[in-house]
């Protein structure tokens, strides 16, 4: 810390910041602590130490089915949003056409639209179409909400690409496709990967769209967890939650490695 803020001002700033950090971490740490509690009900303070709740969760067929569905759905969503999003980002950065700004606004608009309403509106249309496969409906809904994240990250990384390198490649005789594969793609690879990781995580955690499109046969993890919250009172719920927290931590660290967190999330 430099001497830019010192004395009383700095003391206040650091106290508040410390408090906020505690506020952010407290509920997550509590969940993790309770998940190893050797008691039949969730209580504070946690008692003893056991991993039996994890053993229970890992044998819970509903949870494992939900995990499988959520992971497959998130993978499909990632593929779908990259497939649609990366070319769109290209068009937004490199294209020079009328209404570019408006189109960009339109493509990013699912970000500000309440996701709950996006899901409800989609449910109405899919019902009318007679589309009854919950897995397909979920995939469509998730691609709608995740593709803006992909577009945003890829647009940011494309803006940083040095177009002179592409010109050089073209001058030296490479065709457009080769130039893209050998020159452009390596430069935006981390952005594309970050966008994909984002899509995966947003899809995996999504509740407000999922709640409309899932059914009793195909319920992703957040819905199953929500149901368990209401019906189960032993520490298997915290154990499930801890598994989800740990998965998220892996995602965060990957993201930090790929592009740096601040850049990945900056609008």
């Amino acid at each position, binding site marked *: 810390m430099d001497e830019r803020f010192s004395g009383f001002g700095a003391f206040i700033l650091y106290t508040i910041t410390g408090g906020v950090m505690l506020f952010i971490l407290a509920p997550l740490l509590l969940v993790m602590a309770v998940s190893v509690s050797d008691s039949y009900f969730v209580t504070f303070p946690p008692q003893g130490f056991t991993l039996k709740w994890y053993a229970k969760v890992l044998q819970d067929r509903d949870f494992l089915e939900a995990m499988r569905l959520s992971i497959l759905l998130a993978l499909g969503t990632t593929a779908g949003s990259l497939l649609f999003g990366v*070319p769109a980002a290209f068009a937004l950065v490199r294209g020079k056409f009328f209404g570019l700004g408006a*189109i960009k606004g339109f493509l990013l608009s699912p970000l500000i639209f309440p996701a709950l309403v996006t899901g409800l509106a989609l449910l109405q249309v899919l019902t009318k179409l007679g589309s009854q496969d919950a897995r397909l409906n979920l995939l469509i809904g998730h691609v709608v909400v995740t593709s803006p994240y992909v577009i945003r990250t890829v647009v940011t990384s494309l803006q940083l690409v040095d177009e002179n390198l592409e010109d050089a490649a073209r001058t030296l005789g490479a065709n457009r496709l080769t130039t893209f594969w050998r020159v452009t793609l390596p430069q935006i690879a981390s952005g594309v990967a970050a966008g994909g990781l984002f899509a995966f995580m947003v899809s995996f955690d999504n509740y407000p769209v999922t709640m409309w499109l899932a059914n009793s046969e195909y319920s992703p993890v957040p819905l199953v967890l929500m149901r368990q*919250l209401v019906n189960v009172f032993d520490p298997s719920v915290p154990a499930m939650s801890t598994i989800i927290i740990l998965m998220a931590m892996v995602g965060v660290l990957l993201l930090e490695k790929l592009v740096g967190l601040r850049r990945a999330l*900056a609008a």
Partner: protein
Amino acid sequence: MTTSDDAVAVLGVQAPPATRWASRWRLALPVGLLAVPMLAFLTYFFFYPALGLLFSSIQTQDSRGIIGRPFTLAHYARLINVELYARVLWTTLRISIITSALATVLAYPVALVMVKSRPTVTRIITLIVIAPLIVSVVVRGYGWQLVLQNGPKGMLNWILMTLHIVDAPISVLYTEVAVVIGSLHVFFPMMVLPLASALGKIDPNLEDAARMLGAPWWKVFLRVTLPLSMPGFVAGFTLVFSLTAGSFVIPAILGGASAIMLGNLIEQQIFVVYDWPFGAAIAAVLVGLVLAVNGVSMWLLEGRRLRRPD
């Protein structure tokens, strides 16, 4: 016979503007076309459904559940006139405003420390602020349920009673306070990140100049830092407000029956009452609210009154 093009070639002059435009058009067109699949997808699965929902909100549902004529604004009137529903609207507005205001007050110090500290401190704070963003909202709501649990077994009550701050357990869970706390936890990063990015763009020389001219730290903050960080504040406030107003999970887990928000009312109307037009009308009001706040914020950011963050 010599065409003008030949003349150009012979004289070695640059191609006239018209030809250059033409060649640029040929180059630009395919790149623009890359956006077409995404546009088509979003038009069909996002834009068109949203319009369809808006359209249902002014129609009537018959006893067989079929939505059609006559057109009516009765569903909107019902939301405002029936006290039960109007209260949900006010609760939503109140919770969203209080959450955004609290987020602002708490985010300034955190963002300042994040921007001005040593790289390691910045990194750790960034990680702590962002990490929960990627943890499922259901898990975070559950965490707060455990913390705020009514009765002596909740963490907060246990701490308060062990420290003898209160004698009897307090009841926070299933109140608006619990929903505000939960929403603050979930959407806090949305306030800190734009603020930190705005604060990071302020020229440190300006603050140094103010300080050298004798301004105390709080005056430097109020007169230099705060006004220059307005774009970040506006962006963050808009995000937190919009997301809180549209939330479902946090009020469902932490608010119980006493803090129902618009999202919960929509879910109830669709899944329990099967009243699609009324559900659609509530959704339209929610969208209108969010778009209005976003519109005002864009107007503020693009007008001369505020400098754009980037």
